[in-house]
């Protein structure tokens, strides 16, 4: 067997489940099995109270409910598009909850679960997908940068932000989110080189959901992604992205190391995009239904629910309460979406520059006069 064959040897990545198309990997940090059994890991332990466990479950369930509602709203023509996080709730909520006040997240376009943990109102995120604005929340106040659609660009921003934290002696860290496909971008690789060169307090959190739209991970990498970190000179770790406790533990440790001056970490959260890439996508064109069925067995929410029920940490009344809360949230999102005011046309001109230019002021005035002309004509 050649070294290449060895490196890409097909091994089941998640114990007990078949995923024969995926490259082999020996280490997967897991604290909760797909069946909902608590297991220990030699390097990563976690101490969470029962209250916190219930709160984590609530986050997962509410974020999924939001996502389901947004998909429905798109189908009904209320949103232009929606990028679903279905299946990635644990990766996002786990990573988001590992952050402290003062840490800064740099999301892609799919990190609704992170937005939720940062306290950003879902309607802000929805407004972007409705085409009303570009998100509209205050990035610094929220500790969550605006969504970045150009693949990978935010990894350099996170690194620069981390360099600023370092200069300021602030004991915080930046958390850059990226997808498996993004790891192929030159800018992402530059970010990791910069982070290493300056030992910047940044953590790269890669959700390997196995696909970049239709393109499977094998086209981006023939080694497990977390192993790339070694080449840049910092630790890489693969965590079961559908295990919220493991994600929380691994991300907490990486952020703590960054805050303490130990430099960057690359986390590969091994997960699966259970829905379409976006509502514009048709995944039946490029993946087999059987694959989705396999991953449903590793559902991130079902496994925490199984654990909480079996261990008696949560009872039926608790789960019913979360469901009811989910329905209220969905109703609030629906109402807020359909009632969202359309933006004023002049917004096109108003924040292009910090100091408005004479030419743009002229175009704005012309725009206003032109539209007033229609109103006067009663059109």
């Amino acid at each position, binding site marked *: 067997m050649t070294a290449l064959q060895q490196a890409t040897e097909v091994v089941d990545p998640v114990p007990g489940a078949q995923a024969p198309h995926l490259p082999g990997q020996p280490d997967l940090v897991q604290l909760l099995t797909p069946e909902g059994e608590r297991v220990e890991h030699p390097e990563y332990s976690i101490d969470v109270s029962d209250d916190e466990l219930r709160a984590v479950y609530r986050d997962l369930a509410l974020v999924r409910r939001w996502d389901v509602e947004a998909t429905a709203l798109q189908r009904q023509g209320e949103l232009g*598009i929606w990028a679903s996080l279905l299946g990635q709730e644990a990766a996002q909520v786990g990573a988001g909850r590992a952050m402290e006040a003062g840490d800064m997240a740099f999301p892609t376009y799919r990190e609704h679960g992170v937005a939720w943990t940062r306290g950003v109102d879902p309607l802000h995120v929805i407004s972007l997908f409705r*085409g009303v604005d570009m998100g509209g929340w205050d990035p610094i106040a929220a500790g969550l940068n605006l969504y970045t659609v150009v693949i990978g660009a935010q990894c350099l921003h996170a690194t620069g932000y981390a360099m600023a934290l370092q200069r300021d002696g602030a004991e915080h860290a930046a958390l850059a989110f990226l997808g498996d*496909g993004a790891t192929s*971008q030159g800018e992402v690789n530059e970010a990791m080189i910069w982070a290493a060169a300056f030992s910047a307090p940044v953590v790269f959190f890669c959700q390997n959901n196995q696909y*970049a739209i*239709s*393109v499977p991970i094998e086209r981006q990498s023939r080694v497990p992604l977390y192993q790339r970190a070694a080449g840049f000179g910092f630790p890489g770790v693969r965590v079961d992205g559908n295990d919220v406790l493991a994600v929380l533990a691994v991300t907490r440790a990486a952020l703590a190391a960054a805050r303490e001056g130990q430099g960057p970490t690359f986390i590969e959260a091994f997960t699966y995009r259970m829905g379409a890439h976006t509502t514009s996508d048709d995944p039946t064109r490029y993946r087999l239904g059987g694959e989705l069925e396999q991953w449903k067995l590793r559902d991130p929410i079902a496994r925490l629910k199984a654990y909480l029920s079996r261990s008696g940490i949560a009872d039926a009344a608790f789960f019913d309460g979360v469901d009811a809360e989910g329905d209220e949230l969905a109703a609030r999102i629906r109402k807020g979406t359909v009632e969202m005011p359309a933006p004023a046309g002049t917004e096109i001109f108003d924040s292009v520059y910090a100091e408005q230019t004479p030419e743009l002021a002229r175009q704005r005035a012309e725009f206003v006069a032109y539209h007033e002309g229609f109103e006067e004509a009663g059109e």
Partner: protein
Amino acid sequence: MTQKLALGKALNLGLRRAMEDDPKVLLMGEDIGRLGGVFRITDGLQKDFGEDRVVDTPLAEAGILGTAVGLAMRGYRPVCEIQFDGFVFPAYNQLVTQVAKIHNRSRGKLPMPIVVRIPFGGGIGAVEHHSESPEAYFAHTAGLKVVAVSNPVDAYWGIQQAIASPDPVIFLEPKRRYWEKAEVDLDAAPGPLFASRVVRGGDDVTLLAYGPMVKTALQAAEAAAEEGRSLEVVDLRTLSPLDLDPVFESVRRTGRCVVVHEAPLTLGLGAEIAARVAETCFHSLEAPVLRVGGYDTPYPPSKLEEEYLPDLDRVLDAVDRSLAF
């Protein structure tokens, strides 16, 4: 033989024919193989030509254009798809500093027969970076040729002509017109690629457009005709090199000229065209050349795009101003 085809399907058939005609033609891009592209322009091509000729690339645009250079050096004809206009910029360095200059740098020893297909323009209700009109960046770069098709006939023939061209061609596809249909003659090309074309005759004002705005210009001419005004519409088709002789001929007759594009006004194609028309037709002009374009702002969120994009009313408003001058 003619066939009624949507613009997107015409591109698909044109690509297919180019691949049949020349085994050196390769398609490269994100999601173009199995998925057939996010707009399905390459639908079915990987199935018929194989994974080696319809290549699903890693997610890296600099890589797509950079490797296309090396492939072209050994005689391949890469046809690169950039998924959306706003995602061409990681490849911009390769395009401007390498693809555009290599023929000149090598004194003609290394031709770069690369085609870069880019769905461009707005009007589809998309999020940021999916509605851009970046043509001026490329038209400003010596060594690149830039075309923008407006209809299925030019899509079918134009893509084949671009692939056959020995020079690098930025091939702009009006994404919001992908579903517009027309009869396409599959046997005879309607003329050369790098030429503009009068698509509607008229006497009062010359209206210039390309890509998605040609339809808007034709609608404006239709509406103007109802009010007794006769607009001549020219589909520019080629943005670099520009082919303005038919425009000059037209403006000498009409004395008035309006240029329309979605791209921001300042330093857009309209600026160059206005300068050349003024230089060449100065004594025939009855009014300054007017431009209708996007504003000098980032492309807005989709709820505002109707207000941003030139439409029939804004074109007619400019026509009125030209006639009133």
